């Protein structure tokens, strides 16, 4: 009897130890994140105001703002997502539902897995060589968006495939058994049921893309831009225009880097601007994610498991 009690006590102790260890490990991550955010907030929060959001960069820290940077980041995300999501989902669906399992598809699969691990600056070099020098597309928003789309494509593809694989075989068989074609099964069943997982992949892709700096510096994003691209919407027919795609651009992380890089000077405090720009970047990421999460929630609500 005593032995049993002792054994149980020992196991409970082990349980407790692991519990404490787990909490400690989790805290390391959370505390670091909170400390980073707090540091940014302490330095930058006071600097964020309407003027900061609506001003172009300036030689005087107090007059400088992030207008061209956040507009650039936002438009860049629009280009990236419009390219990466359809391409990635289509590729994922093809690999999962259409492609036969042979050596070619195996090579493609290995390549996609590897592409996800390629350093982002390599994508920048690719875009510089191919899009800027070869196709003469210029150092524009379009080229930047295409580059980032390449970069996050593997994330979307992998997320799509995982989401498709999570659908039970029985559902697939039931749809085919009714005489549906492959496309009908995909359109009416597989895509709706995997939309939640695809949205999650898109969120991860977006978060990755919005913080990228290196590939965009490589293709020639500018650090000082004192104008906005043409507005994508206009009052005359056809109400949209695509001239903005052809515009030079800057982005928030680059603006931030530019300010961090200046000597610390109490009278002309660019470091505070950098912290504030960092906060704006985080807020933008979170709000883009919030939009995606709302969309995901809506999509999931229509699927009634």
């Amino acid at each position, binding site marked *: 009897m005593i032995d049993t009690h002792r054994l149980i006590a020992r196991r409970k102790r082990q349980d407790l130890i692991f519990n404490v260890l787990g909490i400690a490990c989790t805290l390391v991550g959370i505390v670091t994140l909170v400390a980073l955010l707090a540091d940014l907030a302490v330095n930058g929060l006071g600097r964020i105001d309407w003027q900061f959001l609506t001003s172009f960069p300036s030689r005087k820290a107090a007059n400088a703002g992030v207008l061209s940077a956040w507009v650039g980041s936002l438009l860049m995300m629009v280009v990236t997502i419009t390219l990466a999501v359809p391409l990635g989902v289509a590729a994922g669906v093809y690999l999962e539902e259409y492609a036969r399992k042979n050596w070619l598809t195996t090579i493609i699969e290995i390549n996609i897995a590897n592409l996800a691990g390629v350093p982002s600056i390599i994508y920048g070099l690719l875009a510089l060589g191919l899009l800027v020098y070869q196709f003469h597309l210029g150092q524009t928003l379009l080229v930047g968006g295409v580059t980032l789309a390449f970069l996050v494509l593997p994330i979307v593809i992998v997320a799509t495939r995982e989401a498709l694989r999570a659908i039970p075989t029985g559902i697939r068989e039931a749809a085919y058994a009714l005489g549906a074609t492959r496309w009908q099964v995909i359109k009416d069943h597989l895509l709706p049921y995997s939309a939640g997982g695809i949205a999650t992949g898109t969120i991860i892709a977006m978060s990755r893309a919005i913080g990228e700096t290196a590939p965009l510096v490589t293709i020639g994003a500018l650090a000082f831009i004192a104008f906005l691209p043409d507005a994508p919407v206009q009052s005359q027919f056809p109400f949209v225009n695509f001239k903005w795609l052809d515009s030079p651009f800057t982005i928030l992380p680059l603006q931030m880097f530019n300010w961090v890089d200046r000597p610390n000077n109490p009278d002309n405090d660019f470091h505070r601007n950098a912290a504030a720009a960092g906060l704006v970047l985080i807020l933008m990421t979170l709000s883009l994610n919030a939009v995606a999460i709302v969309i995901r929630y809506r999509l999931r609500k229509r699927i*009634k498991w």
Partner: protein
Amino acid sequence: MVGSAPATAAPPELKAEIKGLSFFYGQHQALKDVNLALPVNAVTALIGPSGCGKSTLLRCFNRMHDLYPGNRYVGEILLRPGNMNIISPRVDPMEMRLRVGIVFQKPNPFPKSIFENVAFGLRLKGINNRNVLADRVEAVLRSAALWDEVKTRLKQSAYALSGGQQQRLCIARALAPEPEMLLFDEPTSALDPAATAHIEDLIFQLKDHLTIVIVTHNMQQAARVSDETVFLYHGEVIEADKTSTIFENPSKELTSEYLTGQFG
């Protein structure tokens, strides 16, 4: 009366005829030279121990094996009228599956509303008019003996239903495209006795206008619902006959051994 009465021994009208059917999963031969005749508007039960090929045979009837690579059919399954060879590569499986429906072992409704589950098969046949759809969905749910239980909640998720109701919904879904033949792959093995009785009643009603093939592990079920019984063993048909003959007076030793529980 003697002269005009039809001969009682006249062969029954056939719905499908299997000639020399073999089936391979890659290198493994799962069915060996199966020859069978399925009478029209009757229930044929496929019985046999696990791994004997009864589900494999059933899934040949609507080409479910096509969904996976490496599977191969040899022989013919002729579906009447028209003598369409179901397993011929020249026959479009989409077209053929509209004539032969299937109900699976585990209830597998789509994660959509009850209405949409049934409507899917109708939409595939090009029916998109809302009123027509509503009428047809109601009619199909009635013939699956589910209408009274779901008529007030057609917009709810199919997963809100009980297991037995889900299985009847799957039957309704399979009935919607108006197939001529309906396959059941152990349809009650996941259900309780009451739900099982319900499904068996339904099968009994459906055979008025449908040819039914059912795979079952449950000998009593085979005896209760079927008109014909086929006993398979190691991918071969050992015996096929009227259910009463198979159960009361089987001609093969192996059949009676299986039925008396000596193996399997």
